[in-house]
């Protein structure tokens, strides 16, 4: 039985927000940090509270800490030693594993996020900008009362138009393939797989391999908590649109190039089910838009290229033990919308998202290291994920094309089916911290 009154809402539910704000904090003294924590906890929703009041609430708050942050708050060394090595090391030390090299190196991370002084994040989602600004002001007042608590940096989130569905600045529909946790009360959409044991995402519960083991001690530090990796991904919208234009003669061809990079049309329609023509109704239908596999329906990648983003991030029936690799994603877009016909304005925009899982090394790091950045994934030889992989200008992206007997006559040569080669310069800028959400009793209250 999941303890909904003790699990932060962000693990299991999504706030109906169109804006938000992340604030990254440092605790210069532990007493000030603890005073801040005591006060902010009054505002943090549990799953139970969020579900009970989602219709009338206007803002939702979550908090999480780095390993250094737990020490800064006064957690003893013996307890700190029980956390897993990858969390203790922190994301800066794991940068090479994650593919955060070159332009994505921690030296280039913004907002002090590569600093050991980064101790905590407070995540705000708000129903509108006025509410976000009100909460921001309330939080400023709280911090002013807590000695030694400093805001290293902050980031405001803004949904991008049109607002009737979630999508990024490139225009790709999001949130179609999320794992469902057993006992959460949710039903997976067709094609999303069976509900997974809670321990895959929430500490202290059995996972897909059996009972919960090797958890941080004492139990109160772990139970109902999780690990959360933060990724800030800048989207170079002008470069992306130029790329589509350079590789597609007509708007239809450009749309297909965009789809081939992702594995879905920007409408969300999966290429496996709509290989030749966009189908916005399919993309918008959760009963159909995730109901496909690869082994039977697209083994060679004629519809969804083997190296495309969704095929790497969720290989479905073409990978083993998928039930041990799933992750919960939360977050949103930041920066202003760039209108379709506007030139690149140089303003930073992108995605600022969280990956939530019970094992950073088995789930998050595996996805980054093996799925996103392994050049030889699916024996592709010299590719990385075209959307989130670390691109250094030396990689390629292959789009398999079915040999057309009308156009390719034997014996003039056997068409190799490899299709054309594309080069894609994806977005640099990564910033990330692994955090463990705090646990403990939660009560709903307004900011103080």
């Amino acid at each position, binding site marked *: 039985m999941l303890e909904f009154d003790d699990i932060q809402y962000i693990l299991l539910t999504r706030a109906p927000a169109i804006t938000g704000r992340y604030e990254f904090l440092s605790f210069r003294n532990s007493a000030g940090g603890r005073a801040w924590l005591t006060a902010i906890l009054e505002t943090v929703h549990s799953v139970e509270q969020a579900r009970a009041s989602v219709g009338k609430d206007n803002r939702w708050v979550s908090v999480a800490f780095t390993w250094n942050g737990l020490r800064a708050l006064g957690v003893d060394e013996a307890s700190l030693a029980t956390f897993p*090595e990858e969390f203790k090391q922190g994301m800066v030390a794991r940068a090479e*594993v994650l593919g955060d090299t070159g332009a994505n190196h921690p030296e280039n991370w913004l907002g002090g996020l590569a600093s050991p002084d980064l101790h905590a994040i407070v995540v705000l989602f708000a129903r509108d900008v006025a509410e976000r600004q009100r909460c921001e002001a309330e939080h400023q007042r709280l911090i002013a009362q807590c000695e030694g608590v400093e805001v290293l940096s902050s980031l405001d989130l803004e949904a991008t138009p049109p607002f009737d569905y979630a999508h990024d600045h490139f225009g790709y529909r999001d949130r179609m393939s999320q794992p469902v946790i057993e006992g959460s009360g949710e039903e997976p959409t067709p094609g999303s797989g069976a509900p997974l044991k809670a321990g895959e995402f929430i500490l202290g519960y059995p996972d897909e*391999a*059996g009972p919960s083991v090797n958890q941080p001690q004492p139990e109160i530090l772990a139970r109902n908590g999780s690990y959360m990796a933060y990724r800030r991904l800048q989207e170079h919208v002008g470069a992306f649109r130029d790329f589509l234009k350079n590789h597609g003669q007509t708007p239809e061809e450009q749309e297909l190039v965009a789809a081939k990079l992702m594995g879905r049309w920007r409408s969300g329609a999966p290429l496996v089910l709509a290989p030749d023509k966009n189908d916005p109704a399919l993309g918008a239908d959760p009963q159909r838009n995730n109901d496909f596999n690869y082994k039977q329906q697209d083994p060679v990648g004629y519809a969804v290229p083997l190296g495309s983003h969704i095929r790497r991030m969720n290989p479905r029936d073409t990978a*083993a*033990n998928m039930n041990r690799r799933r992750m919960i994603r939360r977050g949103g877009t930041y920066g202003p919308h760039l209108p379709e016909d506007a030139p690149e304005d140089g303003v930073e925009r992108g995605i600022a998202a969280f990956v939530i899982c019970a094992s950073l090394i088995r789930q998050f790091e595996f996805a980054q*290291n093996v799925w996103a950045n*392994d050049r030889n994934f699916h024996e592709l030889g010299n590719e990385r994920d075209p959307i989130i992989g670390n691109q250094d200008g030396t990689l390629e992206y292959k789009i398999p094309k079915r040999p057309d007997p009308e156009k390719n006559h034997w014996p003039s040569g056997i068409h190799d089916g490899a299709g054309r080669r594309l080069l894609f310069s994806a977005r640099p800028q990564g910033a990330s911290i692994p955090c463990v959400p705090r646990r403990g009793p939660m009560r709903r209250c307004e900011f103080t």
Partner: protein
Amino acid sequence: MSDTPKQNDWSKPAAMAIPKEGFFKLEQGRYGPVYPKTPACHGFTIIAKIIPGREEVIREYGRNIEKAVAGNPHCLAVLKLHYLRWVLFDIGKDTYFMYQGIFDTDFDKYTEDAVGLFTKLGIRTVFENLEGFPADWQTNAPAFIEFVREHQCPSFLEYGEYPYVSSDEIKKALKLKAAFSDMLDQMQ
């Protein structure tokens, strides 16, 4: 990660001398240094002393693996293997175990899958009969991986008659050969 650039022509046999550390430059994987792909693909050679008196248990394990593979020939597919070799040998009064694998992925990339696979198949891993192997290996993948890495002896030389070719590519070539043979039959 296996950031191996496109390799040489498979028709040109190749050899690679490897530094003592097992790698040319330190590249950090999830559980430790990443070992390079060589003309003989990826692989490991694990050598450890067995717990005295366990030799027959280990030989019985060999028969169990034979049965498991016969019952489900693809049960080890996730490991992307070419070959596995298990060897027992004596040094003085002690018996040692050598486990050598040749496969197509980095050393640590799918180790969690291997641990999960052994658990799923109900195979009592032969490692349980080795000195120093963690008793909680089934629930402690990092400890399993640490043991493997501590007992890994990197090659100083590897050779491939058909270098860098994956087992999937070999199987594809054999399928193609069979398909051509079938096509020629159909044209008679």
